[in-house]
């Protein structure tokens, strides 16, 4: 009986392919296919009551030449930059405190879990709960009046850019804390002693040792914050009271008007913008070392 023996290396290769198949299928169906659909639809045409296959560039042309689009992108970028600055500041400080000032591991874990408590409720609830706090007759204004700091309620607390950025920072600061904390925990404590031995002051240790070594974490957190803020539409709508636009809101408005091809084109542009931003960020720091 002659049985052809399979080459073991070929067999191993076939098993490898078999093992990656499920993930490939999941990513194919739930990531690649939808994106391809959106890209396809973005070239379709539409009128008031329907949309149909076609190949027109009007959707892109209209989107990219509209002054509204540019103004909205500018506004979204402004939200993003402000949110990033505050999230990075808060995230770094909290992570630094947890990693270097809290001495025992159980205390670190406990405090870290405390940081995640707000995340036990949904985004929407956390966002909405700001409204009674910041409102015209909300807790913030009435306390300030009560304390005699202000005479009139502050109008800009709610339904303003301030409120939007505040909600974003509240929602996304933890996404900064986690990766930075993770990289900081991997910094060998003897490096800090070595720096002190070399005469570095606390601030010099921070700028010469800790920040450079925490950079990958800062970058991963930044990617989270940037993508989340760029794609958001619900926070901006609720916290600005409908007064501020964001790129996400353009898309959601187009969908509600059933202008699917226009929405698809806007989505593709947003996707490319975000990918471009991440590409630029990856240029600065090699995050692969951390994964």
């Amino acid at each position: 009986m002659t049985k052809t023996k399979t080459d073991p290396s070929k067999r191993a290769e076939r098993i490898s392919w078999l093992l990656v198949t499920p993930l490939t299928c999941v990513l194919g169906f739930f990531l690649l296919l939808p994106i391809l659909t959106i890209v396809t639809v973005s070239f379709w045409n539409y009128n008031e009551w329907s949309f149909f296959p076609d190949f027109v560039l009007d959707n892109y042309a209209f989107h990219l030449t509209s002054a509204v689009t540019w103004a909205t992108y500018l506004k979204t970028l402004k939200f993003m930059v402000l949110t990033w600055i505050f999230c990075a500041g808060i995230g770094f400080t909290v992570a630094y405190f947890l990693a270097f000032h809290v001495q025992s591991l159980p205390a670190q874990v406990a405090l870290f879990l405390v940081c995640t408590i707000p995340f036990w409720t949904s985004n929407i609830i956390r966002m909405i709960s700001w409204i009674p706090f910041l409102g015209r007759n909300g807790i913030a204004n009435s306390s300030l009046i009560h304390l005699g700091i202000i005479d009139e309620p502050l109008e800009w607390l709610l339904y303003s850019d301030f409120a939007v950025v505040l909600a974003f920072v509240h929602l996304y600061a933890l996404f900064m804390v986690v990766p930075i904390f993770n990289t900081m925990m991997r910094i060998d404590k003897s490096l800090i002693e070595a720096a002190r031995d070399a005469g570095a002051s606390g601030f010099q240790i921070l700028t010469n040792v800790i920040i450079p070594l925490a950079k990958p974490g800062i970058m991963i957190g930044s990617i989270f914050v940037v993508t989340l803020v760029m794609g958001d539409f619900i926070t901006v709508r609720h916290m600005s009271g409908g007064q501020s636009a964001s790129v996400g809101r353009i898309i959601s408005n187009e969908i509600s008007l059933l202008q699917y091809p226009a929405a698809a084109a806007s989505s593709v542009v947003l996707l490319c913008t975000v990918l471009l931003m991440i590409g630029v960020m990856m240029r600065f720091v090699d995050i692969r070392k951390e994964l």
Partner: protein
Amino acid sequence: MPKNLSLELVATTKRYGETTAVDAINHKFQAGTYSCLLGPSGCGKSSTLRMIAGHEHVSEGDILLGDANITDLPPAGRGTAMMFQNYALFPHISVADNVAFSQKMKGVERSVRLTRAMELLDLVDMTAYADRLPDQLSGGQQQRVALARALITEPSVLLLDEPLSALDPFLRIKMRLELKRLQRELGISFIHVTHSQDEALALADDIIVMNGGQIEQAGSPRDVFNAPRTEFVAKFIGGHNVLQVGGSPVAVRADKLNVARTAGEGDAILSAAVKDVEYLGSTVNLALDAGSAGDLTASLPDAAFFADPIEIGTTVFLGWKREDAHALAA
């Protein structure tokens, strides 16, 4: 220029909560000597070193360098430099920048500090690797860089925390010679923490054996090896048999035991059964069971052993000269 100063511990004590890691030790490290703090893990040798370096707060007592009391000075302000056990090189900057780090902290201009760093790298023979990152170096090379980084501060005392433990045995012996050469050339004091008695005997001008937070014995390697003062030292330093003679313990070096086949030869005192024979090249070790006297080791020159090989199971008679038995403090 590095200054040549002696370092003195005066009743230096370290407590962690209730436990006393270092218990009021006194010792004077002479200027320009190579000293080894030797002991098992947890004996307080590393705490002592870290107190000298200023990385550990001194609970009580003082540390003097020359005439200055450096007990409460910051690590960089006391004339010591430390080389860490895992070298603690900064992984994100080049070898040259690592060496120049302390000068950068002082605000020395980049070109000046890099020139100085290259001089130090030349001292440890690492100039060719100046642009590499620490990850791209072998353990031995990382150690040289760590040495250069510590020496750029021109310390009076260089502190080394188990510097050779991360290296393979071959490299360990090579680096050992190099450390000794460097110390001789620089003329500053090295204080080296180790748990390896071979390392301490080979390197040190002065060995300080520590146990339980106290100094058991300090002296030249020959004194410590030849005449251990306590049972702990005799056992830790190795190569010794601890025996009871007239109710008090004595130490006899394994190579000073006289092994004979018949009683009456020389001044035989004990009889023992040979349990095992270990051939170690230039010597042969006999593992002996001496009944109530416990397990002993006798070390014979290979020529003497092979002239009349002793088989396992043989009963032999052991003796030693009176002057080779050193009384131990209980």
